[in-house]
């Protein structure tokens, strides 16, 4: 979709349109990629919730594994090592060989060392008050059992087995039972935590699923809406383009009909023998000539516009004196200006540097500005042309500015953004039945930009307008080189 159509569609804002179509018309200058990008961003924004949920689920699962599953495993290990401590002590009772008894004593001590490590680790990781409490109780009970176990071991090693058995029955068994209960309590706590965390994981998973479904649904809805909007936007564009084309054809037809009517009328009078005398015939011939020139100019302008839009037109750039350009324009418009009694005030600073450009194109550009000034000046019949050097607002260097000023009807502030659009004609201009194709300013702007410059406007209703052509100054060396060779350099052809 080219820029012409996009801009044309933007103008539908002026006419009556449904609110949705207005929104679509606003979005239509941008391609569908932007729409898809917006959809993509929305989906990503919602998708972040899903990703966060998945992350939370993952973290919960890891916490469950680290906190509960591993915890249960550790408690199982603790229970086993505690049993091993007691079992090894009993094994020492089954032999009278002191060396073997010592081996069992070693095994018992190794196991109790592992139990102590496990309890310390549990206490390090315990966060809840009940966990800490039961951990400390286990530590205390285990310590009490170990002191009894040491006495039992000593008695066994001393060979007093009766005493060992008695000690174990009196102190060891109850102490170990307390340890066993403590371990069961810890296991129960881990079970509770695991259940709670499992419930959390399940809840988070459910939420993730709902959100995922939501994201998919929203994505589907947005994608459908986007497709619909793109199609609708294309359709509106096509309708508007067709409308503009019709308006353009009507406008051009109107522009052609007036000179054709004059030519036809003159031809009829000549054919009917109503024109007598050489002078009268000469005047009729001149009128037909003028009208033909107008038609030719109109057709040329349309063709020029079409060629610039197709980027087929090539300019021959060379250093030009500003006065040379202005003189050329004034020559070509002199007849028109004199015919309708306009005064052109020409002020050109002396010693202006050269500008790089195509003489014919720049003349066309300024001519369009002058013709517009003539058309829209109303009763003032004054046009001012100035040329001067000024600091460039866009570049750090200086530039040449050529202004075409009129004291006519001016341009409405709301219409200012559209006046350089092709085929655009203001409401006031249309109402005033001022003829035109809506191509002049668009063409002038294209030419200015092709010369590396710009075209700007300052206007006030009922006060007048100033159109300014900004052109970059040619470097001195370039200017000198250009003046040495008369042949245009192909490298500077655009």
């Amino acid at each position, binding site marked *: 979709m080219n820029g012409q159509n996009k801009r044309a569609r933007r103008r539908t804002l002026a006419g009556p349109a449904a609110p949705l179509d207005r929104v679509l018309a606003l979005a239509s200058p941008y391609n569908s990629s932007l729409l898809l990008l917006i959809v993509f961003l929305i989906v990503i924004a919602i998708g972040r919730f899903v990703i966060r949920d998945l992350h939370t689920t993952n973290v919960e699962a890891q916490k469950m594994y680290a906190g509960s599953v591993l915890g249960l495993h550790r408690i199982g290990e603790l229970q086993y090592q505690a049993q091993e401590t007691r079992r090894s002590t009993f094994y020492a009772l089954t032999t009278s060989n*002191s*060396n073997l008894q*010592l081996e069992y004593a*070693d095994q018992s001590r190794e196991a109790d060392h592992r139990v102590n490590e496990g309890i310390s680790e549990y206490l390090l990781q315990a966060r809840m008050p009940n966990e800490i409490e039961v951990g400390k109780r286990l530590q205390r009970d285990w310590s009490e059992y170990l002191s009894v176990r*040491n006495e039992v*071991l000593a008695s066994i*090693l*001393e060979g007093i087995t009766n005493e060992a058995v008695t000690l174990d029955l009196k102190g060891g068994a109850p102490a170990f039972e307390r340890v066993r209960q403590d371990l069961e309590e810890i296991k129960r706590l881990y079970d509770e935590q695991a259940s709670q965390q499992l419930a959390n994981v399940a809840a988070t998973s459910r939420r993730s699923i709902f959100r995922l479904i939501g994201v998919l649904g929203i994505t589907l809805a947005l994608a459908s809406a986007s497709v619909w909007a793109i199609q609708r936007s294309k359709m509106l564009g096509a309708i508007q383009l067709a409308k503009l084309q019709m308006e353009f054809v009507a406008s051009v037809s109107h522009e052609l009909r007036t000179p054709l009517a004059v030519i036809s009328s003159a031809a009829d009078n000549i054919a009917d023998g109503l024109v007598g005398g050489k002078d009268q015939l000469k005047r009729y011939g001149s009128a037909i000539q003028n009208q033909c020139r107008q038609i030719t100019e109109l057709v040329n302008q349309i063709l020029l516009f079409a060629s610039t839009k197709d980027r087929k037109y090539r300019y021959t750039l060379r250093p030009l004196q500003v006065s040379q350009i202005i003189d050329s324009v004034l020559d070509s418009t002199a007849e028109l200006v004199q015919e309708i009694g306009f005064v052109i005030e020409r002020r050109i600073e002396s010693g202006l540097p050269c500008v790089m450009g195509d003489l014919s194109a720049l003349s066309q550009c300024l001519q369009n500005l002058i013709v517009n000034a003539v058309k829209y000046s109303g009763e003032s019949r004054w046009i001012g042309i100035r040329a001067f050097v000024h600091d460039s607002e866009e570049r750090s260097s200086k530039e040449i500015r050529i202004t075409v000023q009129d004291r006519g009807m001016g341009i409405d502030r709301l219409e200012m953004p559209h006046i350089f659009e092709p085929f655009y004609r203001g409401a006031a201009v249309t109402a005033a039945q001022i003829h035109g194709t809506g191509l002049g300013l668009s063409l002038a702007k294209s030419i200015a930009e092709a010369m590396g410059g710009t075209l700007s406007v300052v206007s006030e209703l009922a006060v007048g307008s100033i159109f300014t052509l900004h052109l970059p100054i040619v470097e001195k060396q370039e200017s000198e080189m250009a003046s040495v060779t008369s042949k245009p350099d192909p490298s500077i052809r655009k």
Partner: protein
Amino acid sequence: MRRLAGLLFILASAAFSLAALSLGPAPNSRLLPRPQIASEQNLAVVVNLSNPVENLSMPELRRIFLGERSHWPNGRRITLVMMEPGQPERAVVLRDICQMNETDFNNHFLHGVFTGEVLVSPKTLATPVGVRKFVFNVPGAIGYLRVSDLDPTVKAVRIDERGPEDKGYRLHVPPRTAK
């Protein structure tokens, strides 16, 4: 026939006693400290870490090793740990502390247990590691180890106010022979 058997028993006992006497020097000569040979190590007498005893005199040590003293000052029962016969450490203890040979030592405990004068006979362990572990596990245990076999799990007591590292310490054991 009975007379003949009694005569044979008397003769055998006399021969055994003579043989036993011929294995070592006279008891009186063992009362004096034997000078240490350069290659010898000191032999530490060790007790459980919980045992408050820090110092023992040689006569006290002899009474303990002969089972004549049954309890420590803290009330704990004394358990004597000996290494197996044939070990140089055991020989040093028998010679320098008990002032007996192997037979006399065995007979002493057989007689003591039989008469009830000794409550518990010594525990016999094969290795210094076993002795160390036993002393570590039994609060009332007492045993002996080469200084090189000591570690923080047991406590070496001073003998006549001299520790195993001190000059003039009385118990020395010949170096281990490579097997």
